[in-house]
């Protein structure tokens, strides 16, 4: 019988297994060990949510706490990646990118090109994103569209424990800089996760559910929202195909185009802010490359153009839900020929 684990355990296991396999893999970030230099226990914390718990005990100095100096330590991870290490740096919340983005998008992302192909920067930046925890405007954003915009970065957004482990192992083994985005509302999600190490290739979307009527292309936590909507719609006789991008850069255009060619109808579902996001990116691509397959408009379901609100009533309204997806799917059915 398959072993089950949470998304969080899957990530922890991927880190541990890669550290075991390859001595050059190091982990750094605020409190990733936890309590270094304090009088309390060492390795007490493993980060505020416990994601890296246990690693310091096993790998000691290869798990490095940092001061709250994201530019310096993310940049250090980037620099070390050009010098023989394979660092996995933790940017605690993706919302903190604003204090360290330069080292990511102007340094890591561009070295290879600017240096005429002579650099490799195998750095992974793990980061937590997404709404749902009442963490308000500065701790709930998605922001992966910003990273997806930048040539030179790879961007990964696992939706399941299985994918989290396999994609993180791939990220660590990958020779390009990878932004690894973990949805904070998924950490406790359980699913099948093989114990042995495995790597999932980037740029291969996952058809989570098959259906011939409407395609829903989405990613991250929204994969589950899409599936929930699809299950409900099935009761109404509408069969949705749900595609999980898994990685937004590279993006698996072929799978998207195939599903649209099959269904002729598309809903793009993205938890991110609505302008210049993955929903627009996918819709535009399809409208350019599979227009003739389209039977009607492509509907976007996204968060509204507002910061993430704090109050639970508002946040629940803010996050795209299954009802919104169902409505969009029905609208797409109605407006298509």
């Amino acid at each position, binding site marked *: 019988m398959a072993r089950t684990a949470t998304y969080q355990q899957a990530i922890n296991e991927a880190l541990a297994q890669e550290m075991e396999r390859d001595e050059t893999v190091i982990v750094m970030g*605020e*409190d990733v060990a*936890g*309590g*270094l*230099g*304090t*009088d*309390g*226990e060492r390795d*007490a*914390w493993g980060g*505020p949510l416990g994601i890296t718990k246990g690693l310091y005990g096993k790998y000691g100095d290869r798990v490095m*706490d940092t*001061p*709250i*100096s*994201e*530019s*310096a330590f993310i940049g250090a991870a980037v620099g070390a990646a050009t010098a023989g290490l394979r660092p996995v740096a933790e940017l605690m919340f993706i*919302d*903190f990118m*604003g*204090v360290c983005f330069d080292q990511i998008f102007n340094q890591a992302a561009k070295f290879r090109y600017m240096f005429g192909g002579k650099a490799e920067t195998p750095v992974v930046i793990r980061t937590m994103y997404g709404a749902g*925890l*009442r*963490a*308000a*405007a*500065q*701790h709930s954003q998605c922001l992966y569209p910003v990273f997806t915009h930048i040539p030179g970065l790879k961007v990964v957004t696992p939706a399941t424990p299985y994918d989290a482990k396999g994609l993180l192992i791939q990220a660590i083994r990958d020779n390009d800089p990878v932004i690894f985005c973990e949805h904070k509302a998924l950490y406790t999600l359980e699913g099948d996760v093989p114990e042995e190490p495995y790597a999932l290739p980037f740029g291969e979307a996952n058809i989570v559910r098959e259906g011939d009527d409407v395609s829903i292309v989405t990613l991250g936590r929204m994969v589950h929202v899409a599936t929930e909507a699809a299950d409900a719609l099935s009761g109404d006789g509408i069969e949705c195909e749900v595609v999980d991008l898994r990685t937004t850069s590279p993006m698996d255009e072929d799978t998207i185009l195939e599903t649209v060619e099959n269904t002729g109808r598309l809903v793009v579902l993205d938890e991110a802010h609505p302008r210049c996001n993955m929903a627009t990116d996918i819709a535009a691509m399809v409208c350019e490359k599979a227009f003739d397959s389209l039977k009607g408009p492509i509907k976007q379901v996204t968060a*509204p*153009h*507002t*910061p993430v*609100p*704090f*109050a*639970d*009533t*508002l946040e629940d*309204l*803010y996050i795209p839900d299954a009802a919104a997806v169902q409505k969009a799917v029905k609208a797409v059915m109605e407006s298509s020929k």
Partner: protein
Amino acid sequence: MQLSRDDLLTAYRIMRTIREFEERLHVEFATGDIPGFVHLYAGEEASGVGVCMHLDDRDRIASTHRGHGHCIAKGCDVDGMMAEIYGRRDGLCAGKGGSMHIADLDKGMMGANGIVGGGPPLICGAGLAAKQLGTGGVAIAFVGDGGSNQGTTFESLNLASVWNLPCIFVIENNGYAESTSSKWSIACDDAADRASGFNMPGVVVDGHDFFAVHEAAGEAIKRAREGAGPSLLECKLNRYYGHFEGDAQTYRGQDEVKKLRESRDCLALFRENVTSAGLLEGAELDAIDREALAQIDGAVTKAKTAPPPTAADLLTDVYVTY
């Protein structure tokens, strides 16, 4: 800076109100009613109040994720704060901000901040505005020990000095940034040692001692008001609770907090000081204690039953015009 009897009563009242606010949140959070992350200021009251006692509505402060104490010290409405933390429509930020974003610009409170190091640059701006508009105001950034290592903080120290702004940077060194010791994360002995690199005075005070904080802050604020430029003040103090509510604090010594509460509690020290000097009587302080308790009780009761924001509120307040 002489403190009148009224000042002393006020200072104690505010400190006690903060303490009561935070102790009660600790209890209420455990019930699961309060959403999101809550970072409590209990134990650190003498710092926020010692500083803010000098301020009025011309003056501005910027706070951190651990902002409740600064808000109360700067005069934010306690009911409005509590309602905000509960995510209510009549909260100080209409329920849209929550604990980490409580603000009241009319009171000169520029916001708690979810970004470590987010406040110091903003305070340079408030100081600049005060200077350019000739209001006589000063601007104060509260920063944690962890936040003192953020690039934004360093840059702001330099900018405030170069522009000769009426700014004060108060580093509240409570020994930890989440689980990380400030002894480890700050390369030098005291964060205040860094002040000379920015050509400003840097002073370390016992942040449990209201009077020490009040005096040192008074000098820095006077200096700023007189146009003599920025200062750095490091308050050494402690937090009584975890980094956030829910933190098991395994990185902390078993009875660290118990000992602190017994020996270095800022309210107890204040009481001892003013009663032994015959400035105030224990009974007066007891009365304040009771009043604070009642006030917070009322705030919680109101917050719990207040209506939440509704769908109509989701899309408003993004822009002035769009």
